[in-house]
């Protein structure tokens, strides 16, 4: 009797230990330097502290919304945590594909005790979105191809006389339409009212039309740095982190044009329908990965601003180059003199409509 009990207890123990040692979590991210920054700043430290957790990366963030929807329909969820653009998090939340959460319960408070919801502030753009970084879409230019007066104003992009040569712009209306209206004399605060009307959209397209035959349209974030490095374009828009790595890590003759940069956010969402045990591990990871120090650590590897207010003072030097990262952050006061914030509500409504017009205009 006693023997059987001991045997049973031992086997139960072994089984539970076996179960605990075998948690593989699949995280979805963007690949490249950004995923590396996540790996170095929080995935590796977390795995060192929890040897029973193994994190596998899937570089599918660009198609995360479509894939999550397909997984949901098939009833076969294979992802545990997904890194998405804040705009995509709206759609995932709307479709019920991402889980709603309570910031103060899930996320760590700041070191001085400020609650997470206050520390992240407006960055928690919807009920499902767990913020990580602020990035910006802005312009870079070839320092050797722009003459003695480098561009300092967003409207220099539209000035073919002062800055002749090709430009690269993203092959979608978002950001381009705002810049076009701004440079066509629309006041910054009126832009979205104007852009909601058909005339406003035509006005923006007409302004873009003035440089249309000098534009190379990109669809991958790596295109513009490549085009700049090859001298194919004199200036082009892309994510600021891409430009930073071209300038600081690859020593390309590229300068930053921060004027009218568009701030946007990137963060995690938890897919709906995770089993309890996996959800518990994911929550534990998130608590760790979004605390003040971890978000500040991430800035050692990539020039994106930490989403927490309390992380900003902790931003230090680049992990390999040893240069100060603060001046390269889009949120640095010197860079953030004139910024746009990605207007999620507006683009959620008008994205498809304006995109149809934009694509027809491009193809015409």
């Amino acid at each position, binding site marked *: 009797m006693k023997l059987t009990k001991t045997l049973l207890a031992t086997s139960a123990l072994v089984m539970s230990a076996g179960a605990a040692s075998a948690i593989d979590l699949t995280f979805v991210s963007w690949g490249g330097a950004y995923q590396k920054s996540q790996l170095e700043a929080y995935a590796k430290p977390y795995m060192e502290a929890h040897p029973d957790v193994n994190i596998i990366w899937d570089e599918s963030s660009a198609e995360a919304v479509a894939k999550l929807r397909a997984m949901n329909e098939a009833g076969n969820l294979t992802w545990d945590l997904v890194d998405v653009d804040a705009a995509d998090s709206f759609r995932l939340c*709307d479709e019920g594909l991402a889980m709603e959460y309570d910031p103060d319960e899930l996320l760590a408070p700041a070191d001085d005790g400020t609650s997470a919801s206050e520390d992240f502030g407006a960055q928690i753009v919807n009920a499902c979105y767990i913020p990580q970084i602020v990035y910006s879409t802005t312009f870079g230019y070839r320092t050797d191809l722009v003459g003695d007066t480098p561009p300092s104003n967003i409207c220099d992009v539209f000035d073919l006389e002062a800055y002749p040569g090709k430009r690269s712009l993203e092959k979608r209306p978002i950001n381009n339409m705002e810049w076009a209206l701004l440079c066509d004399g629309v006041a910054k605060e009126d832009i979205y009212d104007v852009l909601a009307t058909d005339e406003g959209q035509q006005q923006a397209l007409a302004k873009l039309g003035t440089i249309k035959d000098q534009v190379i349209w990109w669809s991958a974030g790596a295109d513009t740095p490549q085009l700049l490095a090859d001298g194919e374009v004199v200036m082009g828009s892309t994510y600021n982190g891409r430009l930073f790595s071209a300038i600081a890590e690859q020593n390309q003759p590229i300068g930053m044009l921060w004027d009218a940069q568009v701030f946007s956010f990137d963060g995690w969402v938890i897919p709906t329908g995770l089993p309890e045990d996996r959800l518990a591990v994911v929550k534990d990871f998130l608590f760790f990965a979004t605390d003040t120090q971890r978000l500040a650590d991430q800035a050692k590897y990539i020039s994106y601003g930490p989403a927490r207010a309390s992380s900003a003072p902790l931003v230090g030097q680049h992990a390999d180059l040893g240069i100060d990262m603060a001046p390269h952050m889009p949120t640095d006061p010197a860079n953030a003199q004139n910024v746009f914030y990605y207007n999620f509500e507006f683009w959620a409504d*008008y994205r*498809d409509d304006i995109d149809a017009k934009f*694509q*027809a205009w491009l193809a015409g």
Partner: protein
Amino acid sequence: MSDTTDTGPMRAADGTPLKKSLARALRRQKLRALALIAPLLIFVLVTFVVPIADMLFRSVENQIVSDTLPHTVRLLSSWDSSTGETPDEPVYAALAVDFQAASEEKNHTKLGTRLNYENPGLSSMFRKTGRGADDIGKASTKRFTDLDPAWKDGATWAALLGSDDWLADMAEWSKDDGRQPRFSPRAEAASALPMTSDVYTAFARVARTENKKSAVETKPWPVLYTALEQDLATASPESLSAVNGASAGLLQAAGAAVPGFEPISYKDAFIDIDKGWSEVDSWQTIQSYAARYTPGYFLNAVDLEKSPEGIQQRPEQQQIYLMLFWRTIWMSMLITFCCLVLGYPVAWILANLRASTANVLMILVLLPFWTSLLVRTSAWKVMLQQQGVINDILVWLGLVDDGSRLVLINNQFGTIVAMTHILLPFMILPLYSVMKTIPPTYLRAAKSLGATNWTAFWRVYFPQSVPGIGAGSILCYILAIGYYITPELVGGTQGVFISNRIAFHISSSLNWGLAAALGSILLGAVLLLYYVYDKIVGIDNVKLG
């Protein structure tokens, strides 16, 4: 001959008519053959045909509107949008019920996304209304709970709307038993209080799916009070008194009190939350897309749209798909033609060289085939761009001025060059395998009979290579028509295909209905071309080897 006719039908050894016995044997053989291919057939059906059919079906599917707003849609069908007036109060009251129920299950934002494809602005209107939806039911909730605190109880509602069987099952159920018993409504309550019964069915379903608490113990949704108040206002006293069960007394009392309640204007409530609800336009969209199946996606895919005046062309600045279909078709034809012109001589040389030399050359043909598509496409970028290899050489040779370098990429030319290169092996291989079977003696015979080189080729050799041309062309064309990565990378704005838009709608805009419609049309176009090819050339004339 004549004597066989009067001996009757021929018989097999066992006496059955020979015809019958033969047919039986054949049938058995066929069944055996079918059983042999069954695994493959089932595999293809399950992994290929069914998913594709399901995807294409989305091009007409539109259940979401009537599933999410069932009561509203029913009342809205009699509304006349041409009066320029928004619908009457009862429609808003039904909306109050449907919308709250939808927001409990987070379905309202899905519907908003769906309707936003037709009318930009509805997405945020639905999201915003969802945030305010809880307030809509507050007034009714207060009225009932003031009347009798028992209305706060989940058990009151369960006893009122659930069948006796279900209540008995629920009383026995505990969380350890697994799933809750499936809800069945109380028949008298369902006929007296139709809307409330519908909402409670949804409520019980959600409690069952979440399976955390019994439906009887779960806090009732506020929308139940809204629905009950509306049902009681219209229910006849007889039907109410027919409702039995533990909550019958409460219901009688509430039924007597409801006529004394001041009517709630849900219209004002909705317009307070978002003024979009006061616009005829928003309602028109809901009404036009209320049907369970819609031609809307297909209309959109050919640059048409549904409007109150009937089907009409979309505004010129939004027309894009027809143009892209034409571009895809003619550019694919051009690419196929380029492949043929370049591939034919190569295949001819391969087929007529000594085997050892031919094998080396064959590896050269196949080599790009084994390289990643992205690598090959990127290599073309390096070659063709303005600061690229070809332009550099032309400038160095002095053929082109440094200031006016040729634009060879990010246009149609780029797409044609890169895709011709990528698809070339698909043309060469079938051509080669057909040419290999043409005996060289035929050409020699033709020449010895006095034909010139050209006549011998054109009259003797070429006709025999036509099956290879057919196979290669069909392969290249069908592959070209569905390409999207290469056009996306090197096509700029003028060199993109319809597949790029399909990919965009699948992965980016999530308008799967439109993507499915575009895909169906593309599939139809390919099948049509295949049919035409069969009529003109004959599909028997296609050989892969």
